[in-house]
């Protein structure tokens, strides 16, 4: 078997140039997700052409304005936590904190976590509901895409040929209730792992905004807009009637998930939602 061809660009321009010449190349940053997928084997099975991203300075940048935080796609997770733990939304930092353990987080990058094709990993749910955007660059072009549209309905990554994810932009918005829960390990026990991301804004006992997202096995992701619309505008504590209606809506959405999401997982998701709805309150009053 021929040895893989490896490139080590040191700038974004160089990276895009190489990627333009070799659009079939695989981009490799921390590589932790790939390494875990190939766990147990003595040797890696590598793509034919690899572009190693760790030396690309633009991908390692963190910047901030009044309105948003921008993270380079190659910044290791632990570095993001170090720099942004008290500034970034809690739902996002908790998701980061749930990625593996510290030795993995020193290698893993945000871009890899977001773009991992076989499954929706930790950061996808939180960034979706935070209305985060990603910058997609290729030689001579760039565009911004909401994270929610990074994958299509069938779970395919929406990057054009020669395009890379260079930055993630997270808006500063006010959410006074944020929650992230991860159960299980999506690599070791995919069937029983899930993540639950939730953000709400409650002002003067009124829910001004409400967003939730669940991820399950593989590419299965659930964000129920109808449910979000139902709850937004309601007053806390939610009445039993509203909670019952929310349960039924959500149950219907759960039933539409593919068969690989087990009944057990669906019931778990429902219970987590029920807890969250019953826990909603006005933090300023209580």
């Amino acid at each position, binding site marked *: *078997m021929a040895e893989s061809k490896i490139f080590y660009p040191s700038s974004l321009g160089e990276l895009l140039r190489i990627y333009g010449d070799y659009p079939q190349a695989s981009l490799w940053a921390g590589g932790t997700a790939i390494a875990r997928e190939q766990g*147990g*084997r*003595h*040797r890696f099975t590598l793509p034919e052409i690899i572009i190693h991203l760790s030396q690309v300075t633009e991908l390692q940048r963190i910047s901030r304005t009044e309105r948003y935080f921008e993270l380079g796609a190659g910044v290791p997770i632990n570095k993001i936590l170090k720099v942004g733990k008290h500034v970034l939304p*809690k739902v996002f930092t*908790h998701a980061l*904190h*749930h990625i593996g353990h510290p030795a993995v987080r020193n290698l893993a990058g945000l871009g890899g976590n977001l773009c991992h094709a076989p499954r929706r990993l930790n950061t996808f749910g939180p960034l979706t509901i935070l209305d985060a955007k990603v910058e997609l660059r290729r030689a001579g072009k760039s565009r911004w895409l909401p994270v929610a549209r990074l994958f299509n309905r069938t779970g395919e990554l929406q990057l054009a040929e020669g395009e890379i994810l260079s930055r993630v932009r997270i808006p500063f918005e006010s959410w006074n*209730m*944020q*929650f*992230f*829960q991860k*159960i299980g*390990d999506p690599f*070791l*026990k995919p*069937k*029983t792992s899930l993540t639950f991301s939730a953000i709400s804004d409650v002002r003067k006992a009124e829910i001004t905004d409400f967003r939730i997202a669940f991820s399950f096995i593989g590419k299965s992701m659930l964000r129920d807009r109808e449910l979000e619309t139902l709850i937004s505008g309601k007053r806390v504590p939610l009445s039993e009637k509203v909670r019952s209606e929310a349960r039924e809506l959500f149950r219907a959405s759960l039933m539409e998930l593919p068969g690989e999401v*087990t009944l*057990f997982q669906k*019931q*778990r998701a429902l*219970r*987590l939602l029920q*807890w*969250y709805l019953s*826990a*909603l*309150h006005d*933090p300023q009053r209580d």
Partner: protein
Amino acid sequence: MDDNFPFVDKYKTDGMFHVQIVRAEIPRGRIESWDTSKLPEEVLFFSAEDLPGKNELSLLSETMPLLAAKEVNYQGEPLFLLASKSSESLEEAKKKIRIDYETDFSLLAFEPSSSDQVIDRVSLVRGSEERNYGSGTQIIEAQYRTSSETHIGRAPLGAFTYWENERLVVHTPSHWPYHVRGSVADVLKISPSKVKVIQSNPSPAYGEKVFYPSLVSAMAALVTLKTGSPARLLLSPEEVERFTTKKAPVEVNRTSVIDENGTILAEDVHLRFNVGAYPMFTRELLIRAAISSGNFYHIPNINITVEAIRTSAPPMNLYRGLGVAQSLFATEVHSSRLAEFSQLNPGDWKIEHASKRRIITGSEIKKMPLPELLKQVLEKSDFYRKHSAYELTRKRRSSIKTSRSTLRGIGVSSGFTGNGFTEKPTGDFNWGISAVLDSKDRLSIECGTLNIPRAIQDIWKRKAAEILGISTDSVEIIDGDTDSLPDSGPMMLGMPVSVYTSLVERCCTYIRKQRFHKPLPIRVHRNIPAARKNVWNRESLEGLPYQSLSWGAVVTEVELDPLTLMPEVRGVWASFDCGLIYDTSYAVSIAEAGIYEALAWSMGEERGSPRYYQDYSLENPETLYLRLPPVSVHFLNQSRGVPGGINEIAESLVPASFITAMSQAAGVYFDRIPLTPELIHGYLEEQT
């Protein structure tokens, strides 16, 4: 790092052959033919036909082929060896071998299994087999199951072999170097005196270092014999995990007859162990399981049958503990259930039984520590109050699904494990320890297995110093190999701490008696004696089966998350009597490690990895971090008695206490290990 006791992967030399095993791809069938025509020239190929001597390794009376000649009995069974001076070329070379199999696709399954899969059976019968009781009695039937368990993080397993002065030298991490010597000699058809085995570091290990070093050593030695060059075979971590020892899964059926007061009148217990394709130490496993199935309970009429079922799974059952953890799990969960029918809570019920001071084999335990151990853990854990409170909550709760209250439970288990084998094998097995006192009053202790834990070495040194009136600094446990050290048998089942310790004492006692009568140096060797028939009868299973017993009582408290159905352990309280302990801190450490491993097995954690917990709070969701359950360990009577093993008793008692606690929390009788959230969900659905 101590360079005197390296791991086997340290050994290499220029010009050596790397050796790899070609394994069967089917679980059962026959090898029809093979084609090696596409192998590169530099890669050597060996089959069973190349073996000059026996194509089998034996462990006492049980055997396993080195390389399958025709019959394939499990997927992964070694078929051939490849050797090359370049390790890189071997992986590719494996793909170039074509093997044709013949198979009817049948398997030897565990469930269901046929009667001819039963390869051995042990029965322990006491009292009457009559079960015709009058009205007023109840029959409680239950079935318990455990899955297999394996571990990563074991010391490298392999062998490095070469010729030196017309003798074959083998470096391997064996817990029984003399078994390696004998196996290599048999396979190569050379005299054992032509083989020298030097032990490399075998620790950590879970039982695989007793037998598998002999297998890989014989394979590497074959290549050295054929090529004249050094050879090294290292099993990959995946091979060690998949194809060496695992905890043997078990299915246990228990049927108990109790009277209106909850007194057990009779019990029938049937255990079936899945021992894989090539069982090892089977009889020892069955006897130990039978004894643990009776434990210390006073049951006037009991019939325990334990069977070993051969299947098409890779070999199991040489795993640490040999079946005791699995059978104690079933015994203790069942006994907690039976306790409900008495007027006592489970703790007091067990104390009552323990106060009879007997174990199932009839042996009287004069200084029975169990009542005191139980009282200690019950008090420290506040068991009585919590158990009543959780019972009340459980009874008032209509359904776990609608429950808003915390789901908590607490469980207790107790019992003993044995140190040493239940029988010293007959034949050419003179397992023992040697000692030499020289003219400067320095004592050297010679044990056939190195890697004796520091704490146990400390016990030997102190005992020797005490008996001979010398300082501990004058006592040395010496290094060596099969040329210089005696055969002490396999290092397992608490042998070093109990059996070898008593041999050290006997050696020193002899030396003390002879010291001023005979010239120095005085050398002595003492073998493990066979049990006297009036002490232990292995046929009828009567008497005291082990060299010594380690006792324990464990309480576990749990909370069940009603949203995710994930268990959380709130605390473990354990009290043990493992005889003499000098280093309490080390002993506590060993016990705690055993407890955490047992919890990991009970909860189906991947390979014992730790857990994360998170509180449900929107205001301040607790930052994710590892939260290990608090564990409290105490030792009783540590200044006296025969020292005994600690890890096994700690590991064996936790699962039952965890499961009974979970049963109380969920209001459902759980009966299997591991207990995962998905399984809990299944049980709850069944209940509704």
